[in-house]
């Protein structure tokens, strides 16, 4: 079980869903805070949904206030970076680039990618955490070497 958990985590890294920042978070986890990473991830998804909705609304309005969009995305990207959501971060960067040049169509397109990656990561992490909890806290707390 624990090995399975480790494998899943490894694949997440290998596939580029997560980066070193996630490992940093795991470092912060210890006996006193055994579920720290999961808590952070939960918080992240809850908060980022809010941002995604804001961006969605702004895009639907069609007015394309690039500044505003960029602001939202800046926040979203910051969060994503903090938990090590690597692919999400990449899409965010592209989105901001489109904003910068004022490419509305590009923004729309990329944002779909952002949402997709975001959803994918969420599913994967939820699965991972579930397994990790079952496997036992000690294992998840251990830094993946």
């Amino acid at each position, binding site marked *: 079980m624990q090995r399975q958990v480790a494998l899943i985590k490894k694949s997440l890294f290998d596939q580029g869903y997560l980066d070193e920042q996630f490992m940093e978070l795991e*470092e912060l986890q*210890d006996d006193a805070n055994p579920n720290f990473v999961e808590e952070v991830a939960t*918080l992240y998804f809850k908060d980022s949904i809010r941002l995604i909705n804001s961006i969605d609304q702004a895009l639907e309005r069609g007015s394309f206030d690039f500044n505003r969009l960029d*602001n939202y995305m800046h*926040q979203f990207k*910051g969060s994503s970076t*903090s938990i090590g959501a690597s692919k999400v971060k990449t899409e965010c960067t592209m989105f901001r680039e489109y904003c910068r040049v004022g490419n509305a169509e590009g923004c729309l397109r990329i944002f779909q990618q952002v949402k997709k990656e975001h959803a994918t990561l969420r599913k994967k992490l939820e699965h991972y955490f579930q397994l990790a909890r079952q496997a036992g806290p000690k294992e998840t*707390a251990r830094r993946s070497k």
Partner: protein
Amino acid sequence: MLNPGQGRGPDSAGVAGGVSSNSDPFPAGLRVLVVDDDPTCLMILERMLRTCLYRVTKCNRAELALSLLRQNKNGFDIVISDVHMPDMDGFKLLEHVGLEMDLPVIMMSADDSKAVVLKGVTHGAVDYLIKPVRIEALKNIWQHVVRKKRNEWNVSEHSGSVEETTGERQQQRDDGGDNNSSSANNEGSWRSSRKRKEGEVDEQGDDKEDTSSLKKPRVVWSVELHQQFVAAVNQLGVDKAVPKKILEMMNVPGLTRENVASHLQKYRIYLRRLGGVSQHQGNMNHSFMTGQDPSFSPLSTLNGFDLQALAAAGQLPAQSLAQLQAAGLARPSSLAKPGISVDQRGIFSFESPKIRHGQQMMMNSGGGGGNKQMNLLHGVPMGMEPRQFAGGGHMRLQQQMSGGGRVAGQNVQSSGMMMPVGGGTSMLQSLGQQQQQVMLSSSVPRRSELTESSSSCRVLPAAPTHSVVFNNFSSELPRNSFPLASAPGISVSYQEEVNSSDAKGVTATTTTAGFGNPSYDIFNDYPQHNSNDWDLQNIGMVFNSHQDTTAASSAAFSCSSSTQRKRAEQVQNHHQQQHLPSQSLNQLNGGGSVRVKSERVAETVTCPPATTLFQEQYNQEDLMSALLKQEGLPLVDNEFDFDGYSIDNIPV
């Protein structure tokens, strides 16, 4: 890396099982306030900081953070703040914290663009972290706390002694030595120092400042506080106002008699300067500095007139003027704030506590108004902001400068000469606010100080801007001001005057020349003394303001240097035509050279294409060039070589 296996509790103050690099418990317990609107980041940061054994308070709104800090001024050691926040710009928070609480602030952002990082630097952030923040970066933030405290200690030692001995200028030089040792000691026990500081703050009417108490809390004279002060002074009568009574009337908890005393000194200098400017002819003779007055008074008067004339003539860059006015009037959030903060600082710092020479100008609303004006100036040079004052920059620079500036300030005081530069600037600033006139020449206020004329605050309008400008500038040129100890401060201010005056065509340049000489001498004296008299904090602030002002003025008035020079020449000529005693002439000559230099400096400073909107320039890669230019300034400053001015020349 932290070993997750270690059961390190969040607040365990003990040494972390040897894993942590600091077996020394010193950094543990550092009280950190972290501000970030992103809950994810906030949570992660909190966790990281706790792992570092710091005591963390997290906050997701800047306003809330500010109120937390205000309620508990000594409750935190360091602030970490995100740059992009919805309710308040991180830089603004940075400025506020620096001005009001004088705490080190670390900025952080996912944005790592050079411009933003530079902005952090110029606003006075002690560090800038790029997100995602790693715990290693947080482990060492305590260094900023220590560094800041060290600077404060050095300053407070000087200022403490200075304040205590009112009227004694040349004070305890040896405090410097004490400072070093104490700061070293305090490093290890910053907590206890902090407590001591807190204790000091609570002391009221305690005239004897313990110079060894390094943790002198720095009082930031906010606009409101200053207005309270001014009201109290006016009620008592400027000449009769004594710190003790003022303190009682103000009834501000935590304010000590020393704070008021030093502030009063500055205020008096400022008033004096104002008086000189407005009266310009009659008042000139009031100058306590015989030699100086003549030079100053004409200048001051000129300044006052020049400003208006210049403005009218459009000499002032329309834009800058407009900006300044707009800044002053509108109090643009970003602009105004830095300016305000600077003003306050500048004003206070300039009022050298020690300047006791009957310089008492009635500055009724100078303080309050000045501040506003300061904003104006700040507003104008906003372009410069990135480099300069940006409020925060001031703060930080001030801190750094406080060491240097303080010395300078002290010197001035000790020499008993008016601190035209310092005081004037600050005064000007405050005045500026009131009148919201685009600066004209901080030099004006200075002059008034010298002349000791009891002019009204009329002159203020001009001054403030300068002062503000200077402040801004000074932040940019910390180096400039400091290298020469006292001189730098003065030189900076002079430069500013030159710069600003040029913009306005004010005779500031000439004035500076005149000022420069005497003041330089004074400053020369100080460096040796380590001007204890001066409230270090104030001095630091003064210089900062000076510098900032200079920068700001330079930027704001980015009139072509040639224009400036022309104006300076005009001013100088004009000045010379006026009744200048031989001494003053000499001074002028000396000052002239200084002036020239300042012009040069100004030129340097205003190198960036003379666009009123410096901001724009700075936001671009010009920032770096501007910054580099600034760096070049110190070199220029050195040219001033204040040491060259023999004391003898100054008719004290």
